């Protein structure tokens, strides 16, 4: 029993991180209406920038802030350079371009940072034992950081004027425009926010495992699966689905093996599309 509780706890931690990535995808999807495949590589970029910032400044905190800022800025730059110009075309154009953007970001990271695995320089900590259940202090910090991010994002979405406008645009773009909401400012805020969330997700993955140029792309499939599972365009759904997916992945690892972890999120994705294509909280119109 105890190994399973440990796995489930571990699953919650990685699920929160998947949830953050899915949140970033679902935010963009809700307003800009396409699945942004560059999210994964913005994550990796955030982690690399945080590493560079941390080694330059000596503290993880400043490094982390730098990483988040770089991810948010690059995300906004992608919008101005690419996605804004494609907003009047079918979503296919943006989706295809986002793959291209992802490749370009990853290529730059590969040349600049190399392909060696890098790790965050963290003090070693002894895991806690409560009732024989081991739990790592780092995992607690990662979970707290993820939760704090989620609270911040939901506060922005629900308690600030810009968040309210963002939700209005997601709900009905033409109605929002008629009501005098400027789409441009919403888009700037949206891409900054989704980039920052992706950056945080990347940094947290980097702290939990290792940093490589491919890490974000490898997480893209679980993140997409969680975004669809939660109901595409639905922020709460993305997080809930991310946590469920994380727990399922970890608890199933002893049965299916480590390499099939990613395949598991594919299986979940297919099951969702088969049984409930609108996801946990989505609307039917969103899926068809």
């Amino acid at each position, binding site marked *: 029993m105890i190994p399973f509780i440990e796995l489930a706890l571990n699953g919650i931690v990685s699920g929160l991180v998947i949830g953050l990535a899915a949140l970033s995808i679902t935010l963009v999807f809700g307003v800009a209406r396409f699945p942004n495949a560059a999210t994964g590589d913005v994550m990796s970029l955030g982690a690399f920038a945080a590493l560079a910032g941390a080694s330059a400044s000596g503290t993880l905190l400043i490094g982390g802030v730098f990483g988040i800022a770089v991810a948010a800025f690059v995300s906004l730059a992608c919008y101005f350079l690419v996605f804004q110009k494609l907003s009047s075309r079918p979503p296919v154009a943006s989706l295809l371009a986002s793959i291209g953007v992802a490749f370009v970001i990853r*290529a730059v990271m590969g040349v600049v940072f190399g392909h060696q695995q890098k790790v965050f320089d963290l003090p070693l900590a002894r895991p806690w034992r409560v009732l024989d259940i081991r739990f790592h202090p780092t995992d607690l910090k990662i979970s707290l950081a993820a939760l704090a991010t989620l609270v911040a994002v939901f506060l922005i979405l629900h308690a600030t004027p810009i968040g309210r406008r963002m939700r209005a645009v997601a709900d009905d773009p033409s109605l929002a425009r008629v009501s005098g909401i400027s789409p441009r400012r919403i888009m700037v805020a949206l891409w900054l926010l989704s980039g920052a969330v992706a950056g945080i997700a990347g940094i947290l993955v980097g702290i939990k495992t290792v940093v490589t140029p491919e890490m974000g792309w490898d997480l893209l499939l679980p993140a997409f699966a969680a975004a669809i599972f939660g109901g595409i365009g639905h922020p709460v759904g993305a997080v809930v689905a991310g946590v469920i997916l994380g727990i399922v992945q970890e608890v199933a690892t002893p049965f299916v093996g480590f*390499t099939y972890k990613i395949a598991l999120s594919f299986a979940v994705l297919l099951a969702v*599309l088969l049984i409930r294509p609108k996801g946990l909280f989505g609307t039917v119109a969103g899926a068809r």
Partner: protein
Amino acid sequence: MEAYLVAIAIVAAIYVLLALGLNLQYGLTGIINFGHVGFFCVGAYTAALLAEKGWPPLLSFSAAAALAMLAAWPMGLISLKLREDYFAIVSLGFSEVVRLVVTSEKWLTSGVQGITGIPKLFGGLATGLPNSLAVLAVLVAVNLLAIAAMRRIVTSPFGRTIEAIRDNEEAVKALGKDPAAFKIQVLMLGAALAGVAGAFYAHYIGYISPDQFIPLVTFQIWMAIIMGGVGRISGALAGTFILMLFLEGSRFLRDIMPFISEVEMASVRLGVVGLALVLFTLYRPTGLMGDFTRK
């Protein structure tokens, strides 16, 4: 020199098969298949494993096409009724899962080490250049056959329906046709072409391993058909030609500039493919010679 040109021509012909399949799916029907390499991989492994067991090429190639189609069927059934970008995600996931399976199931595929010593086609009849020329001749014949079939499809009622699906799915539904059924057929046809391409690839290269079947391959084909012109057979040919120039050119660049490491060059290739996708979608969505609105 001749040997080199023939070698490039063979690889190009394999890519043309892949591009024709994707062109049928995306160019004519509007299916966003991001998992083309998955079907290519299924075909390559099927042919390699059956060749090991001593199956004659005609049977093993048919099996490669059939298995690739079989892999496409449930995927299409589940996701082609839904939003088109859902299928893009599912197909991308599919190709990654195929790669995971061939990496993990060591008893069948010998994992990351890959399968070596796959016999050359017509290896018993000729060796060296004559052998390569024979392979090339067969490949060209298969390509011509595929092109002829494609032209038949375009002018048939089936072709008109799938193009109507691409242009306006709702209108097709209103006419009482089921777009999903047509899309599944098209997906399977394209997958079969990719499977055959995979079988040729396995036999020609003689060695296959999971890292030859990364998503980058899929998007190289996408780059080819977008550059050449979506929805046109001449576009698939022209695009593949550009792709081969680029791939071979980047190899020569390495010879001239040895200070660039192979890993860095891989990154550069990735970046160029990405940049091409972005720039062509932005500024030249109809490709160098194609026009989406006209046939």
